[in-house]
């Protein structure tokens, strides 16, 4: 107390008293109220889900969990379907590959060569026809005059 007088003279002057009050009979009734609450909780189980859902924080949490329970299995099934589609696509690629490899290199060269030779022979034929035409229809003097 002497310490308090030294470090806090104003505080030490104030009478130490309890200025708070309680309603009449509060402490007589309280044990019964607590007992009732404990019995209520026991009979309901400590966590009644419907009671909890009345509180906004719990309601939001439960909604999120509920949505997750719907979304996750749905996403998994969509992903699985998507995976199956990929397999079909890969399968068709395999078929395309088989078709591609069935055309052998020799066949390919032959096809190209035939086309090439056909084309060159027809071009040679056309040139000969043009020369023949020129020989038959145009005399040398006309050609020399043009030059």
């Amino acid at each position, binding site marked *: 107390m002497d310490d308090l007088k030294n470090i*806090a003279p*104003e505080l030490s002057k104030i009478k130490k008293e*309890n*200025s*708070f009050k309680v309603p009449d009979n509060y402490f007589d009734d*309280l044990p019964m109220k*607590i*007992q009732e609450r*404990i019995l209520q909780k026991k009979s309901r189980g400590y966590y009644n889900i419907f009671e909890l859902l009345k509180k906004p924080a719990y309601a939001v949490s439960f909604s999120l969990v509920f949505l997750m329970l719907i979304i996750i299995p749905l996403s998994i099934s969509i992903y699985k379907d998507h995976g199956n589609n990929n397999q079909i696509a890969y399968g068709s690629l395999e078929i395309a590959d088989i078709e591609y490899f069935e055309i052998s290199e020799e066949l390919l060269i032959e096809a190209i060569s035939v086309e090439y030779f056909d084309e060159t022979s027809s071009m040679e034929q056309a040139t000969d026809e043009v020369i023949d035409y020129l020989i038959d229809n145009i005399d040398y003097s006309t050609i020399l005059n043009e030059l």
Partner: protein
Amino acid sequence: MAEYNDHELLEMFRDEDKVNYAFNLIVRKYQERLYWQIRKIVINHDDTDDVLQNTFIRAFKGLSAFNEKSQLYTWLYRIATNESLTFLRKKRKRLFLSLNDVENQLANRLVSDEYFSGDEIQLKLQKAVLSLPEKQRLVFNMKYYDEMKYNDISEILNTSVGALKASYHHAVKKIESYLKNKDELH
């Protein structure tokens, strides 16, 4: 009514047939002391009533695991303190207030509180206590009003005795300063 010591009450509580009777005796034994501890933190009677009931319900759930390493009273006191602080934090969040604002609000409500009978100087002292940081306020209440030993406070707040002495010293100095400054204003 026979007065049982804590050990006897706990023994009785462990007997399945006497659980409710034993707990009722524990409530009767400690309700007033815990009430005043909580009341000094949350200030308002109705809030104190809620916090005190929650304290005893929490104690009921945990009592079967209580191993008597600490005294029953300090264990209950610790639950009451935690429940009170949790209550204030929830209130702060709910009203989007800072901790200081909550304490200002409590101080302002004290003026019109029908269950507060203090005169002007007592009101001023309560406002000074409410202006302290949370931990200093707890230490001040336990030491100044409840005259608890530092060892018991240390067990309740899980803080070293040295740190508690320093907290109490700072709290007293701040209250003295508050009282002096407010005197100058009046």
